[in-house]
């Protein structure tokens, strides 16, 4: 142990301000980095889930439209739904930017 008392430890041989400034800022930056990384991970997952929900709603809407128009052939149905989904979501594929 290099210090005789806690006060002496805090004083850091007269360099208290500089030593604790360094340690403080480093700790704060690292904690911020971890916090931001965890948050971003959650945000990206949430965005993907939201997009999925929107897709599902679009599918349902498209299916209802099909029924109204009397188009019930399964092949045609799938094709048109996929088209509609692609049209409405193509712009949002690369949305996952850092906030």
């Amino acid at each position, binding site marked *: 142990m290099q210090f005789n008392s806690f006060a002496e430890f805090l004083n850091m041989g007269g*360099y208290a301000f500089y*030593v604790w400034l*360094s340690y403080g800022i480093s700790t704060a930056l690292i904690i911020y980095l971890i916090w931001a990384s965890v948050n971003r*991970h959650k945000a990206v*997952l949430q965005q993907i889930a939201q997009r999925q929900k929107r897709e599902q709603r679009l599918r349902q809407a498209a299916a209802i439209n099909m029924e109204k128009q009397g188009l019930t052939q399964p092949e045609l149905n799938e094709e048109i739904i996929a088209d509609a989904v692609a049209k409405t979501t193509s712009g949002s594929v690369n949305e996952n930017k850092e906030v």
Partner: protein
Amino acid sequence: MFKWLHPYANPEVAYNFCGKLQPWLFRLSAIFLTIGLVWALFYAPADYQQGDSFRIFYIHVPAAILAMGIYMAMAIAALSSLVWQLKLADASAAAMAPIGAVFTAIALITGAAWGKPMWGTWWIWDARLTSELILLFLYLGVIALHNAFEDKNLAGKAAGILSLVGVINLPIIHYSVEWWNTLHQGATVSKLGAPSMSASMYWPFLMCFLGFAFLIAAIVCLRFRTEVLARNGMRPWVKALAEQQISCQSTQCNQAQENK
């Protein structure tokens, strides 16, 4: 070797592998950092010239070395993404840039706080300090380019070229203290085999260095996984994961997840 490595090029396998690695890296880093910092702050001797201000060294030097190490790793990832079109390499390069920027900032700030009592100034346009500042700007440029394009592949290419050009700065930083004789002192610990400092200071430094290295590896894992998710949002496994996450938030199944 490539046969053995090949399955890890699958985003899902890489995502899960890093997910398993991540908590262990965080634990190792906590152990080494606790040992290292307690040793550095309480037990390591004060420098005979610099007194207790020398304790800044235990953050400053690992941060500076690792900031350059991350840059090298990022540049290698960028190269393999540009040459072999490895999407995961691009994701890892994007994951490393912000971490490198933070550690470069730590090296610069702790350096300033050390320079004020020792040199009498917070900042001087010394070769080492200036080239380290350029490293920070390179990191910020890479981050900006990664976020500047809607298309992640295009962004990865632009950022990758900048990272490769920026590699020229690494030898400049390393040899700056030899080429230009200014305020910053020469290398003490990076001389392989024969560090020019006493063991009572070298060991706590090594512990801190390992602690920061594991911490960086852990955060790289975390950010890499985020980048993989962002780049594979349309894959079924990512969708399943996202759905699980959302349902977890409403019904708190964190413990169930951990037990798996």
